[in-house]
């Protein structure tokens, strides 16, 4: 009983709040119409000012109203409705001394910021959604939420008059108010979820931005990787093979005159060949570990775990064959994490679990080290997150100071 009374009072207050927020725009419209009538309907010019008031008022109020509704819904029902407003890019000063805000060059920083704000404000696709909501909301949740306050108003008016009809209206009004108070405000949630979330176009625009950034990242990373491989080959194997050829050519010349010297040179050539093979092996392992190609992800991780100074256990479901790019990204991710566990966390043991379920691939890596892993821009963990992001994968790191470190990598099914 007590809880019902509280919920009725709380509900009434909430309904009033919804009414005030949602009906503020119709209130402006009503004020404009009243103004027009007051100035006199005969003079055609008297309609211009109210029209300006209606348009300007609706435009100006749409965003604050939407923000308020979003805030109230989040507070009362814990349903977060994403706003999806376009975010401003940082304003930067170019070498010419002008300021670039993502759209145009301006002479001063203040102008650049102002220009940027207006451009974003006007070009944001969220504006249309906000306008639609401000127009729709009064006729949906506005009307429903207005029932309890209207009931109370009817009761007050009814009981203030002595006639029986008025009394009857008063009784009916109070009954309606009490009965509807706990429920009326709830209509705001479905309406907000349906009309206030990002539209398909906005979601797509966000996705395009995200993919553009990822593509740029990937291209840069790929170019850097190719440069590294080229440099390694150029300074390593190629140079060694030249030296090898030289030794052999000299040995050939010396064969008849100084066989001992020739033999020594050939031995040297053999050592050189072994060294360049070792170098090439390391390079290949860095590009794509051979076991990954020969046996797939799980055995490659097992092989890595065997070679690592950690006591690492690997558990995996049967038959886990994925697309080669995903396998490679996940393999290098695990390798990075195990290397960190040895180098930074000074761990002795690690546990690696690979599970594929209906949502995607989940890889958990835990160690018993000192913890305290932090993701730094440009660091290994940030790079790992970027590599996974290409497949819409995510990375979760729990690493309190003192350990242990737990990391989860997830790659959704659609990318596998």
């Amino acid at each position: 009983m007590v809880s019902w009374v509280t919920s009725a009072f709380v509900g009434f207050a909430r309904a009033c709040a919804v009414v005030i927020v949602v009906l503020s725009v119709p209130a402006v419209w009503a004020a404009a119409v009243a103004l027009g009538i007051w100035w006199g309907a005969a003079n055609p010019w008297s309609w211009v000012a109210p029209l300006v008031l209606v348009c300007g008022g609706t435009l100006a109020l749409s965003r604050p109203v939407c923000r308020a509704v979003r805030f109230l819904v989040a507070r009362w029902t814990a349903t977060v409705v994403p706003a999806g407003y376009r975010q401003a890019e940082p304003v930067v000063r170019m070498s010419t001394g002008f300021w670039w805000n993502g759209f145009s060059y301006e002479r001063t920083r203040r102008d650049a910021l102002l220009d940027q704000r207006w451009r974003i404000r006007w070009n944001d696709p969220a504006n249309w959604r906000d306008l639609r909501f401000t127009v729709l909301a009064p006729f949906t949740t506005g009307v429903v939420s207005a029932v309890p306050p209207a009931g109370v108003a009817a009761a007050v008016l009814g009981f203030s008059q002595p006639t029986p009809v008025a009394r009857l209206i008063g009784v009916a009004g109070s009954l309606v108010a009490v009965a509807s108070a706990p429920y009326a405000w709830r209509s705001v949630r479905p309406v907000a979820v349906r009309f206030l979330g990002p539209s398909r176009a906005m979601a797509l625009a966000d996705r395009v931005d995200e993919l553009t950034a990822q593509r740029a990242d990937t291209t840069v990373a790929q170019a850097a990787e190719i440069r590294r491989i080229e440099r390694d080959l150029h300074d390593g194997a190629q140079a060694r093979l030249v030296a090898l050829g030289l030794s052999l050519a000299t040995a050939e010349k010396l064969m008849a005159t100084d066989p001992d010297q020739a033999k020594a040179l050939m031995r040297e050539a053999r050592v050189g060949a072994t060294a360049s093979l070792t170098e090439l092996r390391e390079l290949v392992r860095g590009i794509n570990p051979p076991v990954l190609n020969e046996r797939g992800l799980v055995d490659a991780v097992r092989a890595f775990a065997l070679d690592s100074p950690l006591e690492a256990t690997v558990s995996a479901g049967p038959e886990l064959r994925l697309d080669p790019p995903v396998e490679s990204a996940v393999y290098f991710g695990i390798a990075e994490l195990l290397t960190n566990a040895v180098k930074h966390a000074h761990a002795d043991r690690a546990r690696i679990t690979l599970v594929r379920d209906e949502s995607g691939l989940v890889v958990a890596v835990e160690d018993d080290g000192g913890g305290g892993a932090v993701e730094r821009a440009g660091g290994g963990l940030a790079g790992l997150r970027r590599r996974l992001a290409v497949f819409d994968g995510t990375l979760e790191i729990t690493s309190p100071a003192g350990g242990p470190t737990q990391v989860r990598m997830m790659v959704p099914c659609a990318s596998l």
Partner: protein
Amino acid sequence: MRIVVAEDLYLLRDGMVRLIEACGHQVVATAATGPETLEALLTWRPDVAVVDVRMPPAQSDEGLRAALAARREVPGLPVLVLSQHVEQLYARELLADGAGGVGYFLKESVFDADQFMDALERVAGGGTAMDPAVIAKLLASGSSHRRLAELTEREHSVLGLMAEGLSNQAIGQRLFLSESAISKYTTSMFGKLGITDDDSNNRRVLAVLTYLNRP
């Protein structure tokens, strides 16, 4: 010895055949794919086979699979596996049946013809021959590292060479020590690790490898 050579790259296969024949052995068959290898191993039953890990048709670990399959049919069929890279994982799989007669080497080990031939003979005789790189990884891996902490540096190197498959005599030659000195080291080492010493060289090496392979 009658030898089968399985290797998909023509130049390497040809070079290997020439090397083996130059050392006075006979190559009875060659194979260039996984299925061919298995067939050659089972029909010819060679004294020892040299098998590459990666071969057509899938360019994955066909050679290793063929070798393992043949050894399931003919237990202890001597196989020396060659690869561009060595993995503890593969070494463990080869040693898992405990029958001996296996070798696992980097391809460049053929550069040293004498050592390569020595390894082939050891494998043909039912012994084991492991690339120093495999043994180094095995000794350095997490669990072994802790268990071997008690060993002295000398004992450590003796253990490494023993795990490669060398006899006491050969270890002595490598370390410039007498054979009796080596057997003294092995006795104290086996005492520390709790492995029972065995007169047979092969069984002793297998015991050491099993010990190192323990998770």
